[in-house]
């Protein structure tokens, strides 16, 4: 324990003269008969006197002797005869050795604080060892209030809500705050509608507490079991552990291909992805399939209507999407029932004999009824087309 000591060091004056001791007895060497008449008592008194003076002499002599042999407590050096010596509680120091262990300056007004065998000037002692007030940040000298794991000036330790000085009235901890009793009771009444964190037992002020194993908590009490990040209210519980949202999502919880959020509930598996039931919709009309058949094309899903509308073959004759068998001929498509001769509308099948005029089917009968000139011209066109094809195949194309 440190203890302040206020010591006025006594300084032996420089020019003190050692009083000459005259030993009465010494000077009278020859005793004459006449003085033998002195009484024995007188003689004793004078003996005593002589003893005392003698002792004094020796004391002073010893002092001087002692001083001659004295050493500084700090540097263990001796003292010069006329040197100033500091005497502190019996310890002797050179003037320049009696300094603060921190700043090596002499102690202002001789005031020093001692701790663990070292002496410090007031300033450095405070700097090193005095507590700082948690409220104002200054050193605390004198009465220290220790509370809430901190130190305070008595004046600084106040109720967080009403600023009343708590030093003598006591306080109550409330949601990490130090409140006077009245404020605390008021808070308690106000906070009845809110969750109480089951870990720190303070009111959860945020909108959403983190619910873990059916209990509410402040999210920041916990860390993600995967990445260690401090959790927020977004965190998710999975198999008894808590994870931050990104880690949770990465762990195999299906993510909807439409809204990119995890799917909690029924999952639709289609097109190599997962979907919320209501998000798996036709790419054209955006109506959910709700279990009905969907038709895929180019990575998109369509309802039957729109799939046919967009990709279904349209009949050359009736201009409707062909439902059922498709007759494919002449770069076009027909419903089975629509495929007919373009000049007499007689129904045709691909097995029937027909010719092509302007990429339209013409039955053999109609063709034969056409004027010869016309048929000749058509034949010529046919030949020309075939020759051109042959030429294309033979000649390499010059680029």
């Amino acid at each position, binding site marked *: 324990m440190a203890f302040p000591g206020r010591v006025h060091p006594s300084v032996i004056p420089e020019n003190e003269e050692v009083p000459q001791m005259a030993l009465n007895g010494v000077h009278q060497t020859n005793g004459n008969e006449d003085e033998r008449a002195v009484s024995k008592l007188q003689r004793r008194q004078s003996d005593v006197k002589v003893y005392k003076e003698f002792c004094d002499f020796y004391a002073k002599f010893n002092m001087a002797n002692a001083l001659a042999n004295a050493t500084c407590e700090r540097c263990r050096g001796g003292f010069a005869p006329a040197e100033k010596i500091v005497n502190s509680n019996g310890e002797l120091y050179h003037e320049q050795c009696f300094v603060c262990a921190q700043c090596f300056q002499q102690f202002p007004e001789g005031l020093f604080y001692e701790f663990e065998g070292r002496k410090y000037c007031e300033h450095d002692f405070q700097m090193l060892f005095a507590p700082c007030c948690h409220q104002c940040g200054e050193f605390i000298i004198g009465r220290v209030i220790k509370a809430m794991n901190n130190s305070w000036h008595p004046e600084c330790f106040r109720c967080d809500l009403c600023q009343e000085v708590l030093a003598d009235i006591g306080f109550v901890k409330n949601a990490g705050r130090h409140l006077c009793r009245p404020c605390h009771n008021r808070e308690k009444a106000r906070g009845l509608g809110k969750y109480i964190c089951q870990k720190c037992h303070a009111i959860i002020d945020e909108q959403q507490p983190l619910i873990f194993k059916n209990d509410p908590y402040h999210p920041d009490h916990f860390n993600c079991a995967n990445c260690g990040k401090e959790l927020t209210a977004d965190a998710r519980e999975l198999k008894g552990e808590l994870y931050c949202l990104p880690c949770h999502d990465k762990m195999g919880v299906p993510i909807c291909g439409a809204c990119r959020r995890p799917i909690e509930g029924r999952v639709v598996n289609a097109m190599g992805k997962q979907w919320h039931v209501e998000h798996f919709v036709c790419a054209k009309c955006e109506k959910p399939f709700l279990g009905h058949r969907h038709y895929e094309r180019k990575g998109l899903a369509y309802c039957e209507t729109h799939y046919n509308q967009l990709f279904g073959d349209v009949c050359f004759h009736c*201009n409707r999407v062909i439902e059922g068998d498709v007759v494919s001929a002449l770069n076009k498509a027909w419903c089975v029932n629509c495929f007919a001769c373009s*000049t*007499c*509308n007689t129904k045709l099948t691909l097995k029937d004999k027909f010719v092509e005029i302007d990429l339209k089917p013409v039955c053999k009968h109609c063709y034969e009824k056409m004027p010869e000139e016309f048929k000749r011209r058509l034949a010529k066109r046919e030949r020309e087309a075939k020759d051109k094809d042959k030429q294309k195949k033979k000649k390499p194309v010059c680029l």
Partner: protein
Amino acid sequence: MSKSLKKLVEESREKNQPEVDMSDRGISNMLDVNGLFTLSHITQLVLSHNKLTTVPPNIAELKNLEVLNFFNNQIEELPTQISSLQKLKHLNLGNFVSAGGSVVKITVLGLNCGARAWCQLTVYSWVAGLWDVWNGSGRDGPGARSSTATLRALYLSDNDFEILPPDIGKLTKLQILSLRDNDLISLPKEIGELTQLKELHIQGNRLTVLPPELGKLADG
């Protein structure tokens, strides 16, 4: 034995058959076919390979007609009543030059396309005044709306056309255009507006250059 025309008409009426086939029956006048125009329920009337030179206005009574086939007749004129057939989608007017050699010109007068949704128009003949067919503006003035914007296929092969009117660009839904064996010297640049065009037949013409706008249709 093929049935008589009378029988065909009766059958169609009684059995409610929508399609009537009277091709190659030597018919020279539709009015000769008794009761033909009472078949107001029919959707298809085939009169190809006959000898028709004209079409009576009674045609309007067959208001459910969707397909009307006059291929290989000698029709020179169509009545304006044709335009009253609201459901008519396929009209085949392919006619050949008569054996006599004189050019038969079909002048199609006042054919108002009205609100009809045209699908196909086939004309295999030397036809003048054909522009009226789809212009709809010939007789009815500039206010008339042409509905041939819905026309999907237009076959004008084996005709005499030297130029194609720029109105061709109005047929925005046209997918097939056949101009085979005409006398076209050039094609109008409006052809580039036919973004839906899938087939373009231009063989047998006198084209020396093609409009660069055709390049726009390359992706069609």
